[in-house]
């Protein structure tokens, strides 16, 4: 059988190793593991001015990806804005997310786009880039129903949700119910780490571990002191994979506080570690897996509500363990076989 040559297209955020970066690397590896000659192509997206967004899309559009090393490239898999601006006769999109500041985050504190003429044009051009880049694809998948729903709502474009396991699938392990609530992510406003921090005074037994760095790190440390909970809070800017696995295994439960998350690996990682997830009613993607009372606790996005849930988690360990088990069964059903088969099938390379 002729080798199938596929390029995965990803955005590189220099000096960052977020979920999106890990996702495209893992996708490439999974394709290779199934006999596909696959490689990852990335371009950095550095936003110093509005035009950088458009310039980056134009850079992707400028590339000739039809062949590499004198051999044709059979398909490209674009993953997020603006990689899908790339031209290829056999382009498939597996959308991680769009440029959300121009869409659902516009008009919220999480977007720095204003009503200025330049920002208005930026939003219009971002929407045009999405229209041009996405509608010429042979097929569009999204990594969650939340992302698919946004694409339909804001752009009128249909897509199919395609789930996949988190990055360290196969290595997560369970452990006893510990005495910490674990929070993992970038310490920035829309991830709302402050919600959990502000909940701690309402749950005197709970201890919290925050893993991640970001612009809000110092403010959160100060706030922990002001709240009188500094002795119950640990901040760790970054951890290696083995430490991350241990933190999951030793946690009592895992909190996910972001608003309108795309999918979020954290709930799936928590489940595969046998831990229940505490999240909020406006969490977005996590709610596709976290069911209140079944696999976790879903509460209003208020510190008092999270505090009540934490008290419950500390007073009802047996119920918490059962939720973690149910979550593990749910997440264990996910594999790379289905998304890889569907992506290759859409490209006519199955």
């Amino acid at each position, binding site marked *: 059988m002729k080798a199938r040559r596929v390029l995965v297209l990803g955005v590189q955020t220099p000096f960052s190793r977020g979920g999106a970066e890990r996702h495209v690397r893992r996708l490439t590896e999974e394709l290779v593991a199934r006999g596909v000659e696959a490689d990852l192509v990335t371009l950095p997206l550095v936003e110093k*001015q509005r*035009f950088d967004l458009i310039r980056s899309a*134009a850079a992707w559009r*400028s590339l000739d990806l039809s062949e590499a090393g004198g051999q044709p490239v059979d398909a490209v898999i674009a993953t997020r804005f603006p990689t899908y601006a790339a031209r290829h006769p056999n382009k498939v999109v597996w959308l991680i997310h769009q440029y959300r500041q121009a869409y659902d985050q516009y008009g919220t504190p999480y977007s720095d786009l204003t009503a200025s003429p330049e920002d208005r044009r930026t939003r*219009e051009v971002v929407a045009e880039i999405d229209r*041009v880049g996405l509608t010429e694809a042979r097929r569009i998948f999204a990594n969650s129903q939340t992302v698919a729903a946004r694409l339909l709502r804001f752009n009128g474009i249909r897509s199919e949700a395609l789930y996949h396991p988190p990055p360290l699938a196969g290595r997560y392990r369970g452990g006893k119910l510990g005495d910490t609530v674990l929070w993992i992510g970038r310490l920035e406003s829309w991830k709302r780490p402050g919600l959990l921090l502000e909940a701690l005074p309402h749950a005197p037994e709970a201890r919290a571990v925050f893993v991640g760095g970001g612009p809000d790190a110092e403010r959160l440390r100060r706030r922990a002191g002001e709240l009188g909970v500094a002795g119950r809070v640990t901040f760790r800017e970054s951890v290696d994979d083995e430490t991350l696995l241990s933190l999951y295994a030793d946690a009592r439960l895992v909190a996910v506080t972001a608003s309108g998350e795309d999918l979020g690996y954290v709930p799936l990682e928590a489940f595969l570690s046998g831990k229940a997830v505490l999240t909020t009613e406006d969490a977005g993607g996590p709610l596709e897996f976290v069911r209140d009372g079944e696999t976790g606790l879903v509460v209003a996005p208020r510190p008092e509500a999270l505090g009540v849930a934490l008290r419950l988690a500390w007073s009802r360990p047996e119920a918490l363990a059962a939720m973690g088990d149910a979550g593990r069964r749910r997440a264990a059903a996910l594999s790379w076989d289905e998304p890889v088969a569907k992506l290759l099938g859409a490209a006519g390379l199955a």
Partner: protein
Amino acid sequence: MNANDPLRRLAQERGRILGELGVKPEDARWARAEADALASLVTPAFPLRLPAWVARLARRLARIGR
């Protein structure tokens, strides 16, 4: 400078692509930023004043690209 000049061909290509992606002539500041980047390929040590022909070309091509 002739029509086959690589920089001119690059400017044409970039102008067409920007137009395809929704950039319009009214986005003069962006066209200028693009022209500035192109001009830097010719005059990397002369960043303050870009050649007028490049700015004109980029604006015109952005219009054509529409």
